[in-house]
């Protein structure tokens, strides 16, 4: 269980998070939605410790995430970054097996390569892509490699930051399906950030809407359309009219 309690974060005068409270039960898929610049990525990075919150508490299974063994904490996570964040200088298989080639999860090189190729297959990429450099792949393929890297060490918790941004609708559908399948088969806890309502419906067990630095609404995805919250309704319908200012 991941819990955020009254988390605040400001960058200068810009108060991005103004008291975020959120619970993500173990083994469920939470999708956080919200307009651009509402702090979705900041919240995610606060959980991972990439950004230090100004105040508030973030716990994983009841333990403060800022305390304890950081390597052991991070070893429980996998993350798919918005742009893939693949390492340009490494071939695809070494990107996927990055964690398996060094540190506490280190395996022999041949075994790491085998696992990388298996994970690449899992996300629909053939073994002949393994020795290519990331720059030689299309955007969709890079996303899949990022996904393979996120699941390579079989983490308990997987974060997906805008997994379908910049992809065509068909590739978005493929990625959404893959995320759902992988999360279910691994039994992982998932947290996804997206603007894409198709992704929300495909991936989420629960949805939280972040607006004005706070969680505006949260609940099961099945209840999202009947929430009665004008902010959420406007976001779902994509209307320019409503309480959320279209020009921000």
């Amino acid at each position: 269980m991941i819990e955020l309690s009254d988390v605040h974060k400001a960058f200068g005068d810009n108060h991005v998070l103004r008291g975020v409270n959120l619970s993500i039960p173990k083994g469920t898929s939470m999708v956080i939605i919200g307009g651009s610049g509402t702090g979705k990525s900041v919240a995610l990075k606060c959980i991972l410790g990439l950004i230090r919150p100004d105040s508030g508490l973030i716990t994983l299974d009841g333990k403060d995430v800022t305390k304890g063994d950081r390597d052991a904490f991070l070893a429980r996570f996998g993350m798919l970054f918005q742009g893939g964040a693949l390492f340009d200088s490494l071939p695809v298989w070494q990107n996927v097996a990055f964690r398996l080639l060094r540190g506490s999860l280190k395996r022999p090189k041949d075994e790491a390569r085998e696992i990388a190729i298996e994970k690449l297959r899992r996300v629909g990429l053939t073994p002949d892509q393994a020795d290519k450099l990331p720059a030689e792949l299309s955007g969709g393929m890079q996303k899949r490699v990022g996904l393979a890297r996120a699941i390579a060490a079989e983490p308990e918790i997987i974060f997906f930051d805008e997994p379908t941004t910049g992809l065509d609708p068909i590739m978005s559908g493929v990625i959404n399906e893959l995320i759902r399948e992988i999360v279910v088969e691994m039994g992982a806890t998932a947290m996804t950030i997206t603007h894409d309502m198709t992704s929300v419906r495909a991936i989420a067990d629960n949805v939280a809407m972040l607006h004005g630095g706070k969680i505006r609404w949260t609940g099961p995805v099945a209840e999202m359309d009947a929430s009665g919250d004008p902010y959420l309704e406007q976001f779902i319908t994509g209307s320019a009219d409503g309480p959320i200012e279209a020009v921000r």
Partner: protein
Amino acid sequence: MNLFLSPVATLGRNTIAALAMLGRVTLFMLSAFSHILRPPFYPRELFQALLQVGWLSLPVVGLTAIFTGGALALQIYSGGARFNAEAVVPQIVAIGMVRELGPVLVGLMIAARVTSSIAAEIATMKVTEQIDALTTLSTHPMKYLVAPRVLAALVTVPILVGIGDIIGILGGYTVAVQNLGFNAATYMQNTVNFLEARDIISSLVKGGVFGVIAALMGCYYGMDSGRGAQGVGRATKGSVQAAAVLILAANFVLTGVFFSI
């Protein structure tokens, strides 16, 4: 009143900003050295950095040294002729290259070639979230990106300086023997006899310090880069400027130190 205070306030703000940056760079340097000494180590990254900083810098270092040595011989010959001291060309070329021009020019070439490349590479990694990705993959960016580069510069730049010194002296030798009528054997003998161990040691120590400055500035500005292409551009420009100025300042300080020993 405001007109009078405004420049003072600006000066104060800039001084505080400069001191704050000095503090940040110092902490960054201490962190880099602590990561060099503590496991885990990344030999593959170190090997690549040795190749990038050392081996691939050899052509530019060699060319810079040979032209500088040649030009130095011509200048000393021409200047020395004004008071009948043309014969000191071998000695002045040797001491000029080894004590001063070799380390400084190699340092500046490394700043141009290596600092800029490190800053641009790390800044791009930051902009594209690769640094965050490293962290989430349980790999400390200071250990994986900074420590190998700083260590590689510390090891290879003194070697480059030594090679630059030799090539520079050979440049002066070639010009002196081919164009200025010096005897080849006498020129070499004068060069070897004149140089002392402390000249060579000071040259290599300067090389090590300049190498660390060059790599640290590249890494610091890269890690501190802002967003987008503009952020990468600023980081690259800032790193080269800072490295060049710090190398020249460190050269002045080190020269003073070696003179006082």
